[in-house]
């Protein structure tokens, strides 16, 4: 199922989502369902884009607040149009954020978000944070478009078709950028980290 990507999201089919969106502006319970469904994916996506937990929380809050303001006027168009709409808001917020701050920064480990982990050992948590920052650095070496597509696909849990809609390009271009980006990132990962560790 798309959108799972290791992210703890609740299952919801199209009809259920459509019904929730229709009721959400006047029924807090309906909105809560949508919020809980999309929160993990949105949080993970924004984290990879900005890194620092404080900035992530600001941008996630801003995105959902804008969604609250706009949900009454949102019109269901097709499957996943709500996801595309929500992530487009997040992407705009991130773009505005980067217009006001330095383009990319290395973030100290203690300012990074926690990671989903199967172990609760403190040493494992630190290791996870290091892996996260390493991947973030790696993704940042890619072209802006590849960065967007990989983070939306892996952490936003969006399908290529939805990403194409958000970025205003066709699905085939998304697929090509995704493959090229992953190949480049993998090669750099091997060269920069795996080879270095073996030495």
């Amino acid at each position, binding site marked *: 199922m798309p959108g799972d990507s*290791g992210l703890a999201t609740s299952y919801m089919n199209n009809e259920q989502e459509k019904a929730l969106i229709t009721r959400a502006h006047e029924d807090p319970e309906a909105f809560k369902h949508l919020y809980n469904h999309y929160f*993990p994916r949105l949080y993970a996506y924004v984290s990879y884009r900005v890194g620092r937990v404080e900035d992530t929380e600001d941008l*996630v809050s801003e995105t959902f607040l804008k969604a609250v303001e706009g949900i009454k006027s949102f019109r269901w168009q097709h499957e996943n149009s709500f996801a595309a709409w929500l992530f*487009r808001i997040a992407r705009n917020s991130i773009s505005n954020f980067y217009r006001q701050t330095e383009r990319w920064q290395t973030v100290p480990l203690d300012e990074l978000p*926690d990671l989903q982990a199967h172990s609760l050992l403190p040493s494992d948590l630190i290791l996870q944070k290091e892996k996260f920052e390493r991947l973030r650095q790696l993704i940042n070496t890619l072209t802006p478009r590849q960065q967007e597509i990989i983070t939306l696909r892996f952490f936003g849990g969006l399908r290529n078709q939805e990403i194409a809609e958000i970025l*205003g390009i066709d699905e085939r*271009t998304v697929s*090509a950028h995704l493959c090229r980006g992953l190949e480049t990132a*993998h090669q750099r990962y091997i060269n920069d980290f795996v080879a270095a560790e073996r030495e």
Partner: protein
Amino acid sequence: MTLMNNERELTEQDRQLLGKLEQILSDDSGEQREVDSLYGFCAHMASVVPQAQHSFRQQLENRLIVALQQGKSPKKQSLYRFVRDSFMPQYSWKRLRWALTVCMVLMILFGITVAIPQTRNVLAAWLGFSFDQQVKLQPLVVEALEHDWQSPLAQAGDKSLNVYSVEFPKDRWLLIEEAGFLTPEPGSVVVLPNGSYFPVPAYLPSGYQWQDITTMQGNLLGRGFPSLARQSWAGGGPPMPSYDLNVNYLIGGDSTNKPVILAEFELSSQQELVFQIFHADETRFGLVIQPPEAKSPTGFVFLIGSGDLSQTTVNMSAAWQYRGMWNDRGEWVMDRGWSNLVWEQGGRIYHLTGQDLSYAELISIAASISLQEVK
């Protein structure tokens, strides 16, 4: 084969990778895999997922629910007031009759305004702009078009004027695809170099994207010798009054390079000058600025041919629509599919034009500009 086509080419290996990705991203086992392989690397990346503190998630949920409820209550109150004020037994008929009379008078006035071209222009002028329908574009602009904007305007004589112009590349889609530029996001607000905000319309027809923003600012006289100002030239003549003008162009298009362009015009104060706006030869946009002739209107004047200027609405406000643009010989052409929409919003004048776009599509784009951001 072009670079753009190469970028879209999918090999058999790519197809396998895409198929495998579906599987990797659906697998929530957290299983460790060897990162030496590409698939293993993808699985590794998919397993490193940030998660929020529970307290933050809960606090945000509470905050959103409050925001949702606050957003609801004023509307309930106003509906209640409307019902109470309109239908209380002791006042209902008098109030209703009064409201109907006012509505009818307003509708008649509006109808007269729309029906008569002269009053239509008066309404537009009151909003800060007007239309000048001509058979041929003025000679100085035609000369500039013919000489690719390089020619000094020798025949301008002793007439004071300044001209601004911009020309957009025609093959924008390929340029952007090749360079991988960030493009203006629909629904975002772009902060321009002078610190002002430009609201990017949230809606675009399917297949279109916003591609770039170009700004023209200033008081040419404030920059010294007028013809030194970028993207402009001087027409000579006696000194002109000072003015302060901001013009921004938001450029968009589809993969076949059919353009859609939103121009935003803003004057910082009322100035006794005429700002004649023109669009020529597909991708050329500009203004001629000069003192007004006797009794002619000041402010923004759209130079258009003898076409089908008619009135419509954008966000419940008056707007004007027409078809066509000037060709490079200064003749008005209506057969190339150009539609135009002009309206005022938040103290700024907007001109939206697109090729092969319907009026309905232009109005949808215009209506998706955030009113809040314009203020």
